[in-house]
């Protein structure tokens, strides 16, 4: 990016009355956050106080036992572990696969390169919502129903991830790669030892982007997994919710647990979170 002087974001002068701006921002922040805060607070209420009128913000009595109670209702520890396995594998896999493709498309000239890049981009048009029925049939043919492979492998190459990595690697100077080559470095070594360390920010952004999607994955495991032992947390919660007799405070407790990893990661790494989204909308 150039050093152009920018209008917004730098000590913006008050061109609208700042008071009005803050008033609207506070309303927006409350709109975004109150549902979440209300869920967390209510998860510490008893069933007697949870729907109390007038609204009671601070749980009294403070009842934390919904957490262990809910946790014990189903195999939630197991579902949680499954979700972690799925999300981590999909994330790590994508980092390699997308970075490789991004590097190949950015730094080698070979026949059909532009065509392949367009082909990759065109799969953005084939989201799961469109392909779920035939994808299920393909995975069924592979006998991958009720396997981790069946959940994970179809998601190992995210077209947007390839786009992001290519975009980022294009900006790396060719001389650097050329120099390593002259030093007699192997092509794969150049990729893993020179290129990968240089694109760490992009990899972090991609990791978070993919992890969020993988952790939140719902339709696909719902379709492809029938056995309880592979069930991820999202599907576990959905089934828990559809169970008629479920107590609200337990449901809220489980949802809070499911939400926590993502919210923590977001708050810690929001810079990268935002970068991934911004890159999806424009050239970096």
């Amino acid at each position, binding site marked *: 990016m150039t050093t152009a002087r920018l209008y917004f974001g730098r000590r913006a002068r008050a061109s609208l009355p*700042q008071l009005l701006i803050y008033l609207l921002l506070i309303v927006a922040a409350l709109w975004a956050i109150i549902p979440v805060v209300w869920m967390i607070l209510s998860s510490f209420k008893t069933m007697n106080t949870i729907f109390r009128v007038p609204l009671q913000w601070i749980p009294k009595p403070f009842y934390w036992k919904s957490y262990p109670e809910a946790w014990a209702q189903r195999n939630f520890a197991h579902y949680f572990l499954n979700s972690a396995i799925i999300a981590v594998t999909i994330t790590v896999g994508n980092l390699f696969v997308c970075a490789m493709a991004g590097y190949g498309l950015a730094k080698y000239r070979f026949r059909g390169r532009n065509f392949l890049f367009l082909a990759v981009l065109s799969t953005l048009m084939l989201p799961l919502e469109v392909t*779920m029925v035939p994808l299920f049939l393909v995975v069924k043919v592979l006998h991958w129903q009720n396997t981790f492979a069946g959940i994970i492998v179809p998601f190992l190459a995210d077209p947007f991830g390839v786009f992001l990595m290519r975009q980022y690697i294009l900006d790396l100077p060719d001389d650097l790669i050329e120099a390593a080559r002259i030093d007699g470095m192997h092509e794969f070594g150049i990729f893993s030892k020179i290129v990968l360390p240089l694109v760490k920010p992009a990899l972090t952004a991609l990791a978070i982007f993919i992890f969020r999607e993988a952790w939140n994955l719902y339709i696909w495991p719902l379709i492809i997994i029938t056995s309880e032992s592979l069930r991820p947390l999202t599907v576990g919660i959905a089934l828990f919710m559809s169970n008629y007799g479920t107590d609200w405070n337990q449901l809220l407790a489980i949802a809070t647990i499911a939400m926590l990893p993502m919210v923590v990661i977001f708050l810690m790494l929001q810079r990268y979170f935002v970068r991934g989204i911004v890159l999806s909308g424009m050239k970096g």
Partner: protein
Amino acid sequence: MEAIENTNRRKTRSGSGLTRRINRWGYFFVLPTIVILLVFRFLPMLSAAYLSITKYDLFTAPKLIGLGNYVALFQDQVFLQSVRVSAIYVVGSVVPVWIVSLLLAMLTVKAVRFGNAFRTVIFIPVVLAPVVVAVLWRFLYFEAGMVNTMLGYVGIPSVPWLTTPTTAMISIILIGIWRAAPYFMVIFTAGLQAIPIEYYEAGRIDGTNPWTEFWHITLPILKPIILLVVVISVITALKVFAVPQLMTDGGPAGATEVVPLHIYKTGFEFFKMGQASAMSILLFVVMMIFSIAQVRILSEPNR
């Protein structure tokens, strides 16, 4: 970017056999992506195209029936209903999303301080899994839930949010806006923050006020980003599945059964794979129209 491509091209043309051999490594690096996308995206789509002209119930072999599925679809009231539902959902959620997200972005960049902090808080709904969103909003929309209690404070009788067709649709749309607006706020913010100050200084000389500044300077400069947000938001809304499935399961009486949910039910509850494939193809065609626009924007060289 073009400069890079040009130098590369020159290199290849004058390239020795060694360069060519090195460039062959490109295939190696692209291979895993191509294989995965081929098997898990293109192949399914091709088989969907085939299955859409067959009758297939998953247990007996597919039987060719020509365009029968498509003809049947356009006479199928349930399918046409789901198309209407999707259309209402897209139009009803997407327009408010544009306005709210641009407004939020403007507000956070105009705030003298704490713009980032506000963006962080406002962004939180985007991070949540659809399942968490569903639990959360079912709790809020519950007959004795917070929304109705608050309405009660101002004397409005409680609303059966998820149990009548109209209110269920409104509920789902409100959740859609809640989840999508912060996402596009971030994209708009990046766009706004990249506008050089010169444009506005030039405007000052012509005597602009904040209002004309917005309409005559900010909006025209943002045009490519607005275009992108329009396209992505429509695609996202067309794809919505998990929230309606978990909130209402498409009910009551199909009032919130969007097309992807209808495809899911046709395929996995009624095992009509041929029909479900035909619907998938139709949904694909609609999405393709918007996606082509997206790909064209993304691959525009001078952006």
